[in-house]
C-alpha cells in the first residue's frame, strides 16, 4: 500500500468525473427528483392517528438505495473502460499496488456519494419534513457505506463484462434482487422462508435494518453499529475479491 498512489488515483478518478458535468448533475440531482416523486406518490394517503407516513419509511430507504445503485453503475462502467482502454494493463506494469487502485476508486466515489446523500437527505428533511427519531448524520453515514458497497460490487462485476452493454446487465442480476428483498416492498418477517433466508445474507438488507434502527431510536443503538460493521466488512471482502480479478499477467 502506498497512500500517495492511492490518493493520486482518487484524485484522478474525481478529475475524470469533474470534466463530465452531465454525470455530476445526474448524480446530485436525480435522487432528489425521485425522492420528490415518492413524496407526491403518498401525498394523499389517509393515515390513522399516530401512524407514521409511508414517505417516512420508503423515502428513508430510498436514501440508502440511491447511492448503492448509482455508484454500482458508475463504477462498473468506469472500471470496464479502464480495462478495455489499456490504461489498466499499463497501470499494472507500474509499481502501483492493486489495493491502491481499488481503494483510490473507493475514496473518490464515496466522496461523490457523500455529496449525493447530503443533497438528498437535506431535501428529505427540510423540504419534505422527513420525520424520524435519529439524527440525519447517521442516515448519511449509512448512505456512504452503501455507496462503498456499490463501488466494491461494481469493481468486482466489471471483471465479468466484456462490454459496457454487458456491464449494465449486471444491474438486474446484482442490484434488483437486493432492492426487492431488502424489506422495502414487503417486511422481511412476512416473506416466505426461502426469500427471507436469501434476504438475510444480502448486503442491502443490513443497511435497511440500520435505517430502521435510526428511524426508531434517537440515539445510535448497538444494532445500528452492528449493521454498519457488517456492511463495511462485506464491502471490504468484495473489494478484496475485486483485487483478485486484476491480473498483472495474462496467461
Amino acid at each position, binding site marked *: 500500500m502506498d497512500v500517495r498512489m492511492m490518493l493520486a488515483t482518487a484524485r484522478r478518478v474525481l478529475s475524470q468525473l469533474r470534466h463530465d458535468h452531465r454525470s455530476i448533475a445526474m448524480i446530485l440531482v436525480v435522487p432528489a427528483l425521485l425522492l420528490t416523486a415518492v413524496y407526491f406518490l403518498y401525498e394523499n394517503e389517509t393515515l390513522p392517528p399516530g401512524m407514521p407516513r409511508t414517505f417516512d419509511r420508503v423515502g428513508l430507504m430510498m436514501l440508502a438505495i440511491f447511492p448503492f445503485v448509482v455508484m454500482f453503475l458508475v463504477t462498473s462502467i468506469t472500471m470496464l473502460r479502464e480495462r478495455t482502454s489499456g*490504461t489498466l494493463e499499463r497501470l499494472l506494469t507500474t509499481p502501483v499496488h492493486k489495493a491502491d487502485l481499488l481503494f483510490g476508486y473507493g475514496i473518490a466515489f464515496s466522496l461523490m456519494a457523500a455529496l449525493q446523500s447530503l443533497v438528498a437527505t437535506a431535501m428529505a428533511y427540510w423540504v419534505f419534513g422527513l420525520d424520524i427519531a435519529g439524527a440525519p448524520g447517521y442516515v448519511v453515514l449509512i448512505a456512504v457505506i452503501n455507496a462503498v458497497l456499490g463501488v466494491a460490487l461494481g469493481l468486482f462485476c466489471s471483471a465479468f463484462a466484456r462490454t459496457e452493454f454487458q456491464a449494465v446487465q449486471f444491474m438486474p442480476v446484482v442490484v434488483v434482487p437486493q432492492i426487492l428483498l431488502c424489506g422495502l416492498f414487503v417486511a422481511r418477517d412476512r416473506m416466505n422462508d426461502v426469500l427471507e433466508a436469501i434476504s438475510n445474507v444480502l448486503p442491502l438488507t443490513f443497511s435497511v435494518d440500520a435505517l430502521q434502527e435510526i428511524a426508531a431510536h434517537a440515539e445510535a443503538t448497538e444494532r445500528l453499529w452492528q449493521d454498519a460493521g457488517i456492511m463495511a466488512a462485506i464491502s471490504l471482502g468484495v473489494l478484496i475479491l475485486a483485487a483478485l480479478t486484476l491480473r498483472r499477467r495474462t496467461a
Partner: protein
Amino acid sequence: MSHSAASLTMTRSGGDAAIAAAALTVKLGRQPVLHALDFTLPPGRITGLLGPSGSGKTTLMRAIVGAQRISAGTLTVLGLPAGTPSLRRQVGYVTQSPSVYPDLTVQANVRYFGAMHRKGKADVAEAIAAVGLGPLGRRKAADLSGGQLNRVSLACALVAHPRLLVLDEPTVGLDPVLRADLWDRFRAMAEAGTTLLVSSHVMEEASRCETLLLLREGRLLSQLTPAELSQRGHSSNLEQAFLAIIREQEAYDGVSPPAQASTRSRDTGVTKQHGSVR
C-alpha cells in the same frame, strides 16, 4: 580486447544484457504465438522489433514488461526474470493504441502516471516538453489528434525515466518531422544509457535502430544490424531486403529446418550465433 571477451560471456549468461531470452515460448490458449526465441539485447541501445502484423511483436513486448505469462523458456530483463515486481520501477511500456485517459488533460495524464513512480512536477513538465506537447498541456486528451494522443501516451512512460523503454509502434500516425524528432529523442536516451525496444512495421524506421530482431509467425528469423539486413537481403531498400529474407526462409521451410543465421556482431567483433531455432 578483454572487454569484448568479458561482455560476450556476460551476455551469454544473461547478466549484462538488458534483455535475454532463451527458448522463450508463449502460448495464448493452446495457440503457440512465440516459438522458442533466443536472443540477447545489449543495454543502452535501440533495438528494432520488426515483422508483419500478427508476427508476435506485441506478445513479445508484453512478455518483456511482465504483462504476459511465458509458457516455457526463460526471459531475463535487466538481470531479473521478466515480471519481477522490482522491474516495474525500471521498465516503461507504451502500448500500441494510446492508453491514456481521454477525459483528463495532458498534464493530468502525465501527472498521474508520474505519481505511480513518485515523480513530481518537474518530471511531468520535462516529459511533456520532450514529446513537444508543452503548449497543449491543459488540453483534454480527447480533443487531441491521433498522433498527439500517441505522444501523450509516450510522455506517460517517459515521466518515469525507465532504464528500459518498450515502445509498441510509437510512430504510427506521426508526420515525418515529428517522427524524426522522436527518433532523435530515442537516440539521445540511448546515449544516456536507456535501453529501447521499438516495434515497427515500417521498414524505413529499421535504419534508425542499432540492432534488429526480425520476427515472422512467432519465430525469430534473424538478429542483425540494418547494414547486415541490406547485405543479406541484397538490397539497400530494407523493405526489399526483409522480403528477400522471408522468401529465402520460405524456401527453407518444408525442406529442412531453417539454417542458423550467423552474423557478425558490429561492436564486439566476435561472431555470435543468432537466429531462429526450432
